């Protein structure tokens, strides 16, 4: 089989190009595999909040497939330019076009198989290792992984699709040129790119529409299609804008003679402009990956940060016991005895009587009792005297005024209408008697009314008594003590709240989401690092010759270093700016997701975003500096 031999020969001969291609492509296979394996090989779907996680993962997968397809396509165009010369030679030696097609087909199939094998092995190993190490780091989460072949099959199918497109494109390229051109084609150096105003405008429009969609839609099942459209538009727009805008920018810089004819700018601007088509695509990939790192990190760190917030909202004191009647003296004595046993000191306990929470929905300012799939809230009421006593406050209320404690909701109305009456609302930030009734998943609203009669009017249900106190001792003792109290008093678990038990509960619930976020971030950081590295190395080899010539003419080592720095710096900032811009428009979507988990807190989101961006910029700088060294070493030796 001559064709196979020739295909192999091409692959080995141009190993300077084909090895990086295999390398970067395998990374894409790996990332796609990890996403697929999280969707199909884990129990994430059945996990609490799993549906949302699954939804986000699927969006992430589409995002990755798009970037993978685009960057593979770009990389292959460069490779096929090299190949054309060989094919021209074969054609002159008497191979027919059919033979050439076979060679192209075989070569791409070889690439495909190599990348799939390397990528899958890396993906399986990486996800196994990640699961093991993160499990030991975070403690046991409720997330488990089972190995099935399904993700592998999907990965193989997805990349088969990408490669079939590439092969068809290559065939089409073969058809258009005759052997003489084929031969000459690769010896022609790349022409200086033209600026494409139309494409730039198209890119900007695509970006804007994508942004608009992402800002406006709410993450519900029905909006999945819209989200995909938004992602496609943003990805396509980013590539177009980066490719066209960077060329235009460099052209403008070049026109400015005072800027251009400076030693550093002169070399860097012309170097970048010369291969901006590849450069733009690479920068777009880096920018999009940085965006995904930011989104994943911000979402998962917000979850961790929000978790403590949520615990404090749901159980403001360490232990809270809810019962139909006030605690008996014997019960109190038992608690004190247990506290001694577990070396726990207790704070003064307090008790509030609130009406039994009733479930319902809020539409506008109306609270409607209702218990079905739409239920979002529970509402209960108490009188002002109890509240002022408990919180040590001095509020005064008229009959038509209430205080409202509704953590985790953004209720902006000035009035609330319950049971046919409307009250003026004043929001309060603290209520130490708060509890989550029966540990339901709904958001609790507590309404403080002027007197017990109005409290009853608001929520005509019998009273329940919430007995709460803080405990001091080691974490382990506090947890043990909480469990012991619950057992001794034979309180139903649903009416017993301990901060420590709550923490464990939440940890199990959000652990898997956090895990997912960290895993995605790590994968993306690795991918970005490798792409930046690959970019620097390949550019290093491309520029080596130029720098050698310039060194002969009189460019010193020091000036070489300066020129490289200027070149790196100009392109270095673009992806980060792009990523931050993308992030700003992704924030509303993150906000909606966090709201689903009732964890939306503007302050946390802003602080986390700011920190994450800073961390990313710092690590990006480190990566870039390190890889610039690699570039410099290649160029100057």
């Amino acid at each position: 089989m001559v064709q196979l031999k020739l295909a192999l020969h091409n692959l080995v001969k141009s190993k300077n190009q084909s090895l990086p291609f295999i390398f970067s492509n395998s990374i894409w296979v790996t990332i796609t595999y990890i996403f697929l394996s999280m969707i199909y090989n884990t129990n994430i779907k059945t996990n609490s909040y799993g549906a949302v996680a699954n939804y986000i993962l699927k969006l992430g997968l589409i995002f990755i497939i798009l970037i993978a397809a685009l960057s593979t396509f770009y990389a292959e165009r460069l490779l096929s330019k090299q190949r054309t010369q060989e094919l021209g030679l074969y054609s002159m030696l008497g191979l027919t076009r059919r033979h050439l097609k076979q060679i192209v087909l075989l070569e791409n199939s070889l690439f495909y198989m190599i990348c799939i094998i390397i990528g899958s092995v890396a993906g399986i190993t990486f996800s196994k290792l990640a699961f093991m190490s993160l499990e030991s780091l975070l403690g046991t989460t409720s997330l488990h992984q089972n190995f099935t072949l399904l993700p592998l099959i999907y990965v193989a199918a997805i990349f088969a699709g990408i490669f079939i497109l590439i092969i068809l494109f290559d065939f089409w390229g073969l058809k258009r040129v005759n052997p003489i051109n084929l031969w000459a084609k690769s010896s022609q150096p790349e022409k200086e790119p033209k600026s494409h105003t139309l494409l730039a405008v198209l890119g900007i429009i695509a970006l804007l529409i994508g942004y608009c969609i992402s800002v406006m839609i709410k993450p519900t099942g029905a909006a999945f299609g819209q989200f995909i459209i938004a992602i496609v538009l943003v990805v396509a727009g980013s590539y177009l804008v980066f490719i066209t805008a960077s060329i235009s920018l460099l052209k403008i810089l070049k026109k400015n003679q005072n800027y251009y004819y400076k030693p550093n700018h002169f070399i860097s601007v012309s170097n970048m402009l010369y291969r901006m088509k590849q450069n733009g695509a690479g920068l777009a990939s880096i920018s999009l990956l940085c965006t995904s790192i930011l989104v994943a990190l911000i979402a998962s760190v917000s979850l961790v940060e929000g978790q403590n917030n949520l615990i404090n909202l749901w159980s403001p004191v360490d232990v809270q016991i809810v019962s139909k009647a006030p605690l008996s003296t014997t019960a109190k004595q038992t608690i004190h005895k247990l506290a001694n046993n577990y070396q726990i000191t207790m704070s003064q306990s307090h008790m509030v009587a609130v009406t039994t929470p009733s479930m319902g929905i809020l539409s506008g300012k109306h609270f409607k009792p209702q218990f079905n799939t739409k239920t979002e809230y529970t509402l209960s009421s108490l009188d002002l005297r109890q509240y002022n006593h408990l919180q040590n406050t001095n509020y005064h209320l008229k009959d038509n005024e209430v205080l409202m404690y509704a953590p985790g909701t953004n209720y902006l109305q000035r009035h609330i209408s319950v049971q046919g009456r409307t009250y003026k609302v004043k929001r309060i930030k603290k209520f130490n008697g708060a509890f989550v009734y029966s540990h339901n998943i709904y958001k609790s609203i507590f309404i403080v009314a002027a007197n017990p009669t109005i409290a009853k009017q608001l929520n005509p249900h019998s009273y329940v008594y919430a007995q709460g106190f803080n405990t001091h001792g080691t974490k382990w003792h506090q947890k043990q003590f909480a469990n012991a109290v619950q057992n001794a008093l034979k309180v139903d678990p649903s009416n017993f709240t301990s901060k420590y038990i709550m923490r464990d509960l939440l940890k199990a619930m959000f652990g898997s989401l956090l895990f997912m976020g960290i895993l995605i971030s790590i994968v993306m950081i690795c991918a970005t690092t490798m792409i930046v590295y690959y970019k620097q190395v390949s550019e290093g080899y491309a520029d080596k010759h130029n720098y050698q010539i310039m060194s002969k003419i009189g460019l010193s080592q020091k000036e070489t270093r300066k020129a490289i720095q200027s070149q790196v710096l100009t392109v270095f900032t673009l992806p980060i700016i792009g990523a931050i811009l993308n992030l700003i428009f992704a924030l509303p979507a993150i906000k909606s997701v966090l709201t689903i988990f009732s964890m939306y807190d503007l302050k946390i989101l802003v602080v986390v975003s700011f920190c994450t961006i800073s961390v990313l910029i710092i690590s990006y700088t480190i990566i870039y500096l390190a890889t610039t060294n690699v570039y410099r070493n290649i160029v100057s030796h």
Partner: protein
Amino acid sequence: MGESGAGKSTLLNIIATLDQPTSGEIMLNGTDLSHLSENESSQFRREHLGFVFQSFNLLDTFSNRDNIYLPLVLSKKPHQFMDNKLKPLSKILGIEKLLDRQPSEISGGQKQRVAIARALITDPSILLADEPTGALDSNNSEKILNVFEQINERGQTVLMVTHSVQAASYAQRTLFIKDGKIYNKLYRGDQSRNQYLQKIIDSLTALENNEEVD
């Protein structure tokens, strides 16, 4: 002149400060070139030397104009200065129409003329040319050599390494190198080019036959 491996290019590289001599010293305008630091030698190359290579060594990333400007840009000369320098030079070399094209769009002979412009734009003390006609056909070679002769008449020193007796016959003085040593030297004086060519051929034959020539 000399055979392959005789040490012609090594000598040229040492004069160009790209290489260090194992012994002896190289003096140019009273400067000892063998003890320059990396930075000094870069600056020296830029300010005092012009290079013309066999393989042109134009940078594909620059237009022809920018290729010629390169050494001046490295010396931080203002744009107007470069422009003024280039005008007369491009006329002599006949490359006015090529300036705004890319090196990839012009022929070998044209490339070499652009390369000569790049070498001359700094007014170098000495122009070093390593087989400048080696990759050119005879017609283009002749053009290049004529250019060298012209600029030489205007007072520009040109040091050219070559295999070709044709090329050597354009020189005012020819040194023959064998095994790293200067074996013989010829002066053209008032001889015609053909007479001088014959003398070079004789000398070369003698060199190959290992004879001592007076």
